[in-house]
């Protein structure tokens, strides 16, 4: 559930979960009694199940940041295959802008974060997630203009998306001359702050054919974590969690990079698509900046990327992974605002925390044999 205004002042965070769930059930033609699995982040699965009148036999709720929903999908697939549940509801709801009923994040003065990072004065992800990028730029001689191009290209997709928060065309100069948030990141290189929610329903493929809408099949999934402290990443030019999650999903799906028609890479900040393209193996190390600048990911390019406009221009309520998954679903259903013609395989790759976690989901609109 997303609006161009970017706010839902009438919903609490739990209410956003519930409304997204209600719409997803409506879409699937089922009700709470048909659902026996619940997973969510940003609210407890217990309160979500109670609130929605669900009696679950499967409860899942890893909350590892914005990619939590990629992990929920992966676990739901395993749960369904192993019989833990037949139909799993995964919800996201976040009053990211309005802050209504929004829970706090854990932490204390003795936490690793407090002792080894927080005292340096970061103001949230814009000053933390961005820490490694200067080393990346220097190592691979990537320019600020190439970093800015990530935001420019995604705005081209957002212009086609009626629900996108930011739709006005933008140039590299616009991006670089915008208000500085945390050098070298200007405002358009940082994600939006909005309200929003989304939900998915997963079930076995033989059951999905009875639903009124076109099913999308999960081909492969992967997940991993690296560190809760961005300063302790093994390599500032690459995410280990990405390098584990992405290839795991590709192996499980049994596909090659050339098979991928559509790609979502969680873009809380402009450098993430660069890291994602490289760590998932779509391009070589240090090549992603040129790959995007050369137009490969823009509308009509050979690898359409973040086709909803992304966290930079579409919406970002705080844990964006749900929207990346939804855009992949829409692309596979053929209902996306910026539809990639003939797309058969989509990869949705998420990050959680500041390079702390990662989840990858590969989908297709063709039933795997």
């Amino acid at each position, binding site marked *: 559930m997303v609006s161009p205004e970017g706010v839902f002042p009438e919903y609490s965070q739990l209410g956003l979960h519930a409304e997204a769930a209600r719409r997803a059930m409506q879409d699937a033609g089922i009700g709470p009694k048909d659902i026996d699995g619940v997973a969510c982040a940003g609210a407890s699965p217990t309160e979500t199940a109670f609130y929605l009148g669900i009696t679950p036999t499967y409860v899942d709720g890893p909350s590892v940041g914005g990619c939590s929903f990629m992990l929920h999908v992966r676990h739901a697939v395993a749960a369904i295959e192993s019989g833990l549940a037949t139909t799993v509801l995964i919800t996201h709801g976040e009053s990211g802008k309005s802050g209504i009923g929004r829970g706090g994040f854990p932490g204390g003065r003795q936490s690793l974060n407090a002792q080894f990072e927080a*005292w340096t004065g970061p103001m949230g992800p814009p000053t933390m997630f961005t820490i490694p990028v200067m080393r990346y730029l220097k190592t691979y001689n990537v320019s600020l203009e190439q970093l800015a191009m990530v935001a420019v290209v995604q705005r081209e997709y957002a212009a086609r998306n009626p629900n996108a928060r930011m739709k006005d065309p933008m140039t590299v100069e616009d991006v670089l001359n915008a208000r500085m948030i945390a050098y070298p990141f200007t405002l358009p290189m940082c994600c939006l702050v909005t309200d929003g929610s989304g939900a998915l329903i997963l079930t076995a493929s033989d059951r999905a054919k009875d639903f009124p809408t076109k099913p999308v099949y999960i081909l492969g999934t992967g997940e991993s974590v690296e560190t809760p402290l961005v300063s302790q990443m093994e390599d500032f030019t690459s995410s280990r969690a990405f390098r584990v999650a992405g290839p795991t999903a590709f192996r499980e799906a049994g596909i090659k990079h050339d098979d991928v028609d559509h790609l979502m890479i969680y873009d809380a900040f402009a450098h993430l698509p660069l890291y994602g393209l490289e760590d998932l193996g779509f391009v070589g190390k240090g090549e992603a900046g040129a790959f995007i600048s050369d137009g490969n990911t823009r509308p009509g390019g050979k690898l359409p990327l973040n086709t909803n406009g992304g966290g930079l221009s579409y919406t970002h309520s705080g844990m964006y992974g749900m929207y990346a998954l939804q855009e992949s679903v829409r692309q596979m259903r053929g209902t996306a605002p910026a539809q990639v013609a003939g797309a058969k395989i989509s990869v949705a790759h998420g990050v959680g925390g500041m390079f702390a976690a990662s989840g990858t989901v590969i989908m297709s609109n063709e039933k795997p044999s």
Partner: protein
Amino acid sequence: MWGLHLPKVHVHGRHCDCIHSRNPSAKGPDSKLWQVSLHDYSRMAPQATPETRPYWDGLKEGKLMIQRNKQTGKAYFPPRPFDPADPFAEVEWFQASGKGILLSYVISHRAPPGYEAPFSIAVVELEEGVKMMTNIIDCPQTPEALQLDMPLELAPTKVNDDITLPTWRPAKGA
């Protein structure tokens, strides 16, 4: 907050009576726009745990105490009772050199209460091979002054009787 060089361990805060003012317009005559201690850290002062106590006790005396694997000699950070590369190996505390290089940073244009923007949030790579997040002090907070790979040295900032923070500055004579 702009002012003269001062002894490196100095508490700036609401009640601080040091010779320079927190007001940027009240620069001293010798001001070179070099920041001495950037922030009032008192609100964000961490607390040690049993596992990290020697680290924080060392900093109180101006020493950077970290740990290493006794067999391999390889340092690790942040402190914990075992080496994550080999949790069964013996480990020991030792005093790091206090030398390192600027690995990466941002310059934040927003400041939490008690902090002065714009300011750098940086990661220093120590000579011993480990990384730590820090603020670079005694240095203009600009991309021109903050060059990757520049040599840095430990310049701790005292916050309270328990906590002295491992701030760093450009190495003298570099």
